[in-house]
């Protein structure tokens, strides 16, 4: 443990967590190694690939370039915390139906980013979905299934709302 360890208090998937963290520890490592929430995947560790995307106070963020110490007082939601989330539930079904995943490495980050697109951009056409999802890399699917899955969820929600 670092000589510079700091005490932080935050919420992870709804549960209060008190921890002593070395400031150098990024949020992704904190979640995986201390909280054992290994649904958050680490790819590039410099903010490019999107695999580690989680929610901080409900907004998507890269857990690999956010330090855990900076999250004192914040509320963190990982893919595990989206089990009962209605949009994430619809997305999981759509990702399966549309073949939006293969190896699954990018999927946790994809689901978090896709949920943001569904909620924030209900008017998105397919090019807009592609642009909005461009911060998440998938090396299996070619993105077609992922875009179709998000399309399916947005269309279903718009139909139900209409």
């Amino acid at each position, binding site marked *: 443990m*670092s*000589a*510079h360890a*700091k005490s932080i208090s935050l919420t992870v998937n709804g549960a209060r967590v008190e921890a002593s963290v*070395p*400031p*150098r520890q*990024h949020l992704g*490592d904190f979640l995986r190694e201390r909280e054992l929430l290994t649904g958050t995947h680490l790819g590039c*560790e*410099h*903010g490019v690939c*999107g695999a580690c*995307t989680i929610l*901080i106070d409900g*907004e*998507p*963020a*890269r857990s*690999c*370039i*956010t*330090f855990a*110490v*900076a999250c*004192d007082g914040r509320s963190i939601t990982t893919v595990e915390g989206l089990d009962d989330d209605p949009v994430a539930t619809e997305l999981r079904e759509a990702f399966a139906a549309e073949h939006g995943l293969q190896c699954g490495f990018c999927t946790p980050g994809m689901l978090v*980013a896709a949920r*943001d697109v569904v909620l*924030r951009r209900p008017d998105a056409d397919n090019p807009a979905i*592609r*642009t*909005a999802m*461009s*911060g*998440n890399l998938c090396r299996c699917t070619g993105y077609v299934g992922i875009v179709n899955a998000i399309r399916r969820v947005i269309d279903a929600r718009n139909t139900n709302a209409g």
Partner: protein
Amino acid sequence: MKAVDFDYAQPATLAEALELLSREDVMVRPVAGSQSLGPMLNLRLAQPELLVDITRIAELQTIRQEGDRLVIGACVTHARLEDGDYPDVTRGVLPSVAAVIAYRAVRNRGTIGGSLAHADPAADWVNVLTALGADVVIAGPGGRRSVPMTDFILGVFETALQPGEIVAEIHVPALSDRARWGYYKVCRKTGEFSHATGAVLIDPARGVQRCVAGATSGKPVVIDGPALFEGGCTEAAMAAHLAGSPAADDPIALRTHTVALKRAIAQVMS
């Protein structure tokens, strides 16, 4: 890779932050959203001994209108500028440009002040705020000073910030209702770093006819006056303007910069 073992402070006031940043016994760096410094720390390109997180300082989070200027706190995120919960005096420049910075997950954390202090030549605000004629208010141990963007960015990752100083505010002048602007960047992939950036502002009411060529591996190249408009944006003209920068000697870079600026100009002319 993982960052080196650094110490960390999260002051609640600007005065406290400046006090910490004035320490000379350790290598200290300010940090805001950590969307540029975070990767540099993980890659160990930056190895500070103390990080001073300025994102909990309330006065750096505000956006306010002061006369004909919009005053943006250094720690205002790109996402907030994208979403537009403020009087946009720039006729869409701020939200439109914010929306194309990296990705939403980055925009939620990354800040306008952090982007300027980092001074990557490819950064959107570095070039757009130069085109807009914004001023940067710097806070330091000696008080505050205001520096025009053209004097703030000195080169690649190089700014007018002196040791112990941070960006406090950005002052963006209002555009007149006759103003027109254009922005185009050439990226290999959406959200990736720009290889060539063109930013253009015409504001007859203020007598502004400005082109900015950015991501030139140097400070933004400002070309004032009508020369590049009306078909004047040629590779030969750009070679002259970019003389001295690495882009001028590379035919592909020269063409890319010409295209970026031409397309930004076309948005103004259409």
